[in-house]
């Protein structure tokens, strides 16, 4: 696809007083990709985006956004980058259309062209009917969609979305993600999504970066990350009667390293990729009914919690050493 790098940070650091919000971040995002910046709250995702936008000044390190330096050329960066903050605010007393018009005017779009464009965007995000109502009466989902329209007004090359699905119901989330996916895939825009809601973002991101305590602990596609985490498989298994679970037989299967029986579930850990079918076969041969089986390895949740804990562990280790 595209291999041109559009966003690049080198040793980017931001310190607030005694807190290091972003710690020597090296991030590269290619043109036309949808990149998910994942991490828990307070990991420094928003701070990173603010610095990429030129809204916040880095303590040290360098940034390139489409060849521009946001610190020195903030205005040029803001011309090509659309930013949707997590608490996207609109003027409650104005209608959706008026809010968009104001943004269009600030971007130097002539009134005539602005009106046409706003009309198009309102249809696109599905706010045509509500466009003349005051934003105060909008629901959270409508606000987010208006936010997308607001970002698209300036026809950005790069779009930053900060927690776009936060507080949305499943229906609203799906609609929003569809719009984002369309922007990325059909229009070739570079999109950076920050989120702590992994499942939602997992579906649409080309690559994700896992961000913990200001550090990027892992980058890559979801499947790459799954490989990276190691070949260890964790299988959850439930049978009709756990008391007669053939622990020893399962352990005997090549590749299985441990079997733990919890109250009503067996947790089987092993090395081989096709462990689950083998176990199922063994159980079926013994005429045991399987109620539930889940292989957890390629799940983003695991990847995430794994890296998250790893990141925390490292952090603790470091502070321990420092002491």
């Amino acid at each position, binding site marked *: 696809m595209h291999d041109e790098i559009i966003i690049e940070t080198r040793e980017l650091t931001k310190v607030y007083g005694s807190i290091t919000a972003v710690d020597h971040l090296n991030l590269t995002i290619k043109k036309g990709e949808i990149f998910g910046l994942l991490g828990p709250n307070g990991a420094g*995702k928003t701070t990173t985006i603010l610095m990429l936008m030129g*809204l916040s000044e880095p303590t040290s390190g360098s940034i390139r956004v489409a060849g521009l330096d946001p610190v020195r050329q903030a205005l040029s960066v803001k011309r090509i980058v659309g930013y949707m903050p997590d608490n*996207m*605010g*609109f003027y*409650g007393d104005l209608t959706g259309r008026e809010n968009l018009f*104001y943004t269009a*005017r*600030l971007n*130097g779009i002539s009134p005539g062209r602005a009106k046409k464009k706003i009309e198009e965007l309102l249809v696109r995000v599905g706010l045509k009917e509500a466009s003349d109502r005051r934003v105060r009466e909008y629901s959270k989902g409508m606000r987010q969609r208006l936010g997308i329209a607001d970002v698209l007004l300036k026809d950005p090359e790069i779009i930053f979305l900060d927690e776009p699905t936060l507080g949305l119901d499943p229906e609203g989330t799906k609609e929003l993600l569809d719009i984002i996916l369309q922007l990325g895939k059909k229009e070739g825009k570079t999109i950076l999504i920050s989120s702590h809601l992994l499942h939602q973002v997992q579906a649409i991101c080309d690559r994700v970066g896992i961000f913990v305590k200001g550090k990027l602990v892992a980058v890559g596609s979801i499947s790459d990350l799954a490989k990276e985490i190691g070949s260890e498989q964790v299988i959850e298994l439930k049978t009709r009667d756990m008391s007669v679970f053939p622990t020893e037989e399962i352990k005997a299967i090549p590749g299985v390293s441990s079997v733990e029986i919890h109250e009503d579930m067996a947790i089987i850990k092993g090395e081989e990729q096709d462990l689950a079918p083998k176990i199922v076969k063994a159980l079926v041969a013994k005429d045991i009914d399987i109620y539930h089986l889940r292989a957890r390895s390629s799940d983003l949740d695991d990847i995430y919690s794994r890296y998250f804990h790893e990141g925390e562990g490292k952090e603790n280790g470091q502070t321990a050493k420092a002491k």
Partner: protein
Amino acid sequence: MAKLPKLSKIKDFIQKKGSKADSENIESTNPLATVFLKELADQLSSTRFFILFSLITLTGIVSFYSAASNIRGATEDVISNFVLIRLFTTSGSSLPSFTWFVSILGPLVGLSMGFDAINGEQNSGTMTRLLAQPIYRDDVINGKFLARLFVLVLMTLALGFFVAGMGIIMTGVPPTGEEVIRLLLYLGLSIVYMAFWLALAMLLSLVFRQTATSALCGISLWLFFSIFVPILADMIADAIFPVTKNADALTQLYNVRVSQGVSRLSPSTLYSEASVTLLSPNVRTLGPVLLEQVYGAISGFLPLDQSLLLIWPHITGLVAGTLIIFGITYTLFLRQEIRA
């Protein structure tokens, strides 16, 4: 709350006017003008502005009316000149003068316009969105201040001219050229005074995160300057130069001087002294006068330039105060960091 139809018309008009002006030079617009027009529309259509404007107009008109009814008795004796402008400073039988009301309510107007200018937008999340647009921060702060200043100018001139017109009709005395100039200067001074409070309110809205905090802080400062500073001034003066029964003239003189000096630190005092001097040409001095200084002086009116000379420090002080406070706000706003 139901929006007033008239005001929304004004808003539409302003927006249309803005778009007409811009359609001539397509794609190159002035962000300052955009912010200015948006803020102006916000101000004019806000309920808050409507309530305050009604309040100041009503009290102004009522006090002016009662002054006009009373002035008949006052004019018969010595001074038959400057009837119109003296209406502004004459208090009626039960009501204080027009200028008194403006000096009390003016700060309130400025404060109410500015107290949430910046933190209001920060709290609603529109500030980040605004600053993510390709505009300079200067345009945002300047546009906000200028729009509010414009509303102040509009309001003060409208009220001043309306009341003056009413005065001419009621008294039947046509104003002289000097009266008109003095009136204009007074209105200009009032605008500067309100702008001072506006700038202060905007500074507070930048310093405090919560709109309630900045509003309360603004009101406390207003009470402090208009009520407590004069009291404080007397206390300080009495502490340094106590005036006892047999105090000599010099102590008394110093006492008055200190008291006046301290109270002039308050913009309210500066404004009241300046407005009285402008509107009452028979005010010849603002400080204490010794009997020997009056001896031989012919009582009469001060010419305009002499009145101006008397209050020049006041005007300079108020203008400088406004500019300094706005300058601080401007600098802080430009340096303010957006945090996650």
